[in-house]
């Protein structure tokens, strides 16, 4: 049991590391228990590719060394584009990890410190991503540098000092500083993560909420039935690693093969600053900062300066998150007893998504006071009231959701598709290309389907979940067959890959696609083996 003095407890009674975990964490749906591990895998991938990039990056000619690396060095484009998309993956997974912890109430005691460190890690990750993005030295990076400098120098009293510390005093120092801070922040993340991880081991995993009565402190009491770490968890972690890295490699490699990818998602450096091509680039930050850029367009931020704008629009949510364990002190982990936290969580998702979308469509266009106030008010109320309505109904028992997991999934799909189609509606209004119109229609269709499914779950039309089927096992011959097909495909892909000459971005990207497939095949083989040998 966590005692009064946590440091004393940790130091004097070290916990077993790594802890064994219940079987359901390695079965279907168990992925939700490993969102933190997936963030870490993405971070490790970043560290490894970052070290390779460090061998080539030259702050004195940031842009040239980057574009040369992409164009001239064998597999350079694969490493740079996957480093970028690995960062994207890390940020997305971090949000997923945070939101899951928020919705299941993992921030409650005894995990307050773990949660607080997590919020800090979010800030650091956005910081490290900002510096990494700016290191390219293209027109977008210069734009990002201007905004960052504006925010830093607006800090009262020490603003000039901050701007000098982070950005150097001359253009020659700029990229040396960027490189330095990129590495320093990555190191800070590693250290804080170690503490975060150790606390997680100390506080035990957060068990299924329905397994007990759902009251904090919700900790896992180890059971002799738990299987040992080796080989069960080790193979599972390996499988997870192959999945995450496979996706990190294959997605940007496919994107790299597609012509005319929109600037926001292009995996390549953009035009050099001061060139004619740079003038036609929209003033975009990286997509994960779009929401801040948009907020800086609001009349309030324009009047008070970018620093105070960021304090209000970025600092306040972060402060709320940091203070959450102390704001929501109730014992219950059930969502119906945490209506405000849940409502604010959903609100946060909507604000983040819509502000980003707004920033993508209208970058840098000033927004008058009434407009942004109306936006915050409408979205806030539009989320708050229905959430309360639904949660109250569930609490009273007048509303029953058959399978909450699937319902939540269909809601997530709904959010994603409505967001995507909103984006494409605006895009096709602006440019009206056939591709965006077609994808818009497709997305609208899938949005309608997710809406129907969500409503069906809500009304109990779709069958309720009747217990989790025990790890579905196939027949022995099927395992041999699928495994052989996977392996054969893998070896064939490897053969093609070894024949590729890495002399163009196209060839590099093909290699990347092949490598991503190999990772996914290895993932599949491990999954198969675990299913066969352990019934997991």
């Amino acid at each position, binding site marked *: 049991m966590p005692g009064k003095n946590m440091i004393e407890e940790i130091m004097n009674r070290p916990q077993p590391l790594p802890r064994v975990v219940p079987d359901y964490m390695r079965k279907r749906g168990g992925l939700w228990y490993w969102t933190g591990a997936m963030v870490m895998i993405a971070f490790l991938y970043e560290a490894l590719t970052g070290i*390779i990039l460090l*061998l080539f990056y*030259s702050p*004195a*000619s940031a*842009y*040239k060394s980057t*574009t*040369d690396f992409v*164009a*001239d*060095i*064998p*597999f*350079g484009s*694969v*490493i740079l584009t996957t480093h970028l998309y690995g960062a994207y993956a890390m940020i997305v997974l971090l949000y997923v990890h945070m939101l899951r912890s928020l919705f299941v109430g993992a921030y409650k005691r005894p995990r307050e410190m773990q949660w607080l460190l997590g919020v800090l890690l979010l800030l650091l990750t956005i910081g490290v991503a900002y510096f990494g993005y700016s290191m390219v030295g293209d027109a977008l990076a210069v734009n990002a540098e201007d905004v960052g400098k504006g925010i830093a120098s607006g800090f009262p009293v020490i603003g000039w000092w901050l701007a000098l510390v982070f950005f150097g005093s001359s*253009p*020659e120092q700029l990229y040396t500083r960027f490189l330095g801070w990129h590495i320093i922040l990555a190191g800070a993340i590693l250290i804080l993560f170690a503490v975060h991880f150790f606390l997680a081991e100390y506080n035990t995993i957060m068990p299924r909420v329905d397994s007990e009565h759902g009251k904090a402190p919700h900790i896992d009491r180890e059971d002799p039935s738990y299987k040992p770490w080796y080989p069960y968890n080790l193979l599972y972690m*390996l499988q997870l690693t*192959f999945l995450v890295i496979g996706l990190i490699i294959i997605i940007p490699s496919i994107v790299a093969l597609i012509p005319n990818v929109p600037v926001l998602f292009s995996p390549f450096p953009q*035009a*050099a*600053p*001061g*060139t004619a*091509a740079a003038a036609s680039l929209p003033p975009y930050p990286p997509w994960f900062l779009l929401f801040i850029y948009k907020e800086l367009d609001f009349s309030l931020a324009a009047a008070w300066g970018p620093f105070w704008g960021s304090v209000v629009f970025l600092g306040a949510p972060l402060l709320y998150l940091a203070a959450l364990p102390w704001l929501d002190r109730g014992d219950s982990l059930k969502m119906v007893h945490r209506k405000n936290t849940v409502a604010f969580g959903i609100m946060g998702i909507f604000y983040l998504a819509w502000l980003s979308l707004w920033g993508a469509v209208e970058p840098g266009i000033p927004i008058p006071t009434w407009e942004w106030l109306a936006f915050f008010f409408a979205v806030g109320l539009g989320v708050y009231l229905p959430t309360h309505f639904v949660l109250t109904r569930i609490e009273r028992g007048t509303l029953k959701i058959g399978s909450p997991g699937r319902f939540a999934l269909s809601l997530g799909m709904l959010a994603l598709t409505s967001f995507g189609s909103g984006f494409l509606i605006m895009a096709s209004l602006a440019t009206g290309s056939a591709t965006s119109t077609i994808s818009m229609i497709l997305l609208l269709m899938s949005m309608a389907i997710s809406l129907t499914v969500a409503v069906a779950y809500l009304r109990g039309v779709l069958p309720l979940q009747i217990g989790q089927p025990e790890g579905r*096992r196939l027949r*022995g011959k099927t*395992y*041999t067959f699928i*495994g*052989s097909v*996977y*392996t054969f495909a*893998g*070896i064939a*892909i*490897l053969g093609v*890959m*070894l024949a590729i000459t*890495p002399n163009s971005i196209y060839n590099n990207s093909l*290699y990347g696609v*092949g*490598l991503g497939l*190999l*990772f996914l*095949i*290895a993932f*599949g*083989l*491990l999954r*198969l*083996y675990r299913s*066969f*040998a*352990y*019934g997991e």
Partner: protein
Amino acid sequence: MSSRDSSEEPEDEGRRTFLKFLGALGVAAVSVGVLRGAVQNIIPRVQGSSSSGYPTLQLVLSSGSPVKTSDLVVNNPKIVLFNYPLLSDPNFLLRLGDSSNRDVAIDPATVKIPETGKTFTSPGGVGPYRSVVASSAICEHLGCKPPQLRFHPPSDSSFPGKLHCDCHGSTYDPYRGFAVVTGPTHKPQPNIVLKYDSSADTYSVVSMVGPTIFGQPSNLSGGTPFPSGAKSTTVTIQEAA
């Protein structure tokens, strides 16, 4: 695990070993793929002695057509500039002549760098009359640019046939590798190496010799580079005013 039949045990064991083998093969395939990529990637590119990182750019007019010898005026009183090796580095393009505006062949010369005492060999003139030379247009003394630093034709009353900087009075001799004539500068102007294609009558810039361009850590860094894949640099003409 529970559903496994004990009668299937021997067959299952073999199958398990086989699946294990397949899994190991899959992981091995990943390792080979990663290793090949990583190993081939981290080998640094060996720089060819001729290229050494300088881009080769053709000189073109603002219309986009290549510069011909006839586009260049002997002893042009106007300032003819092009950017190289970075987009932010202006350079003089000079067709040198005598006082009666006849082309003068420029021989390679040994140029001394007073600051260090070292020397370098200037590339000499190119073109049909070996009279076309080029140098950085950023003064090595304190970085003044045209029109403060400009070429005075041999017919000029002041500084005839010299590069002179109005800021602090440094003077360079374009006929002898832009060597220092008078201070306060301690360095000659960096020379641009040109290449002339006599069959097409076109000019390209291939590299530089001499000191480093003023204010830059190296000639190839510290400014705005050309977009990757650039093939030409545009010649602009401004009045000496």
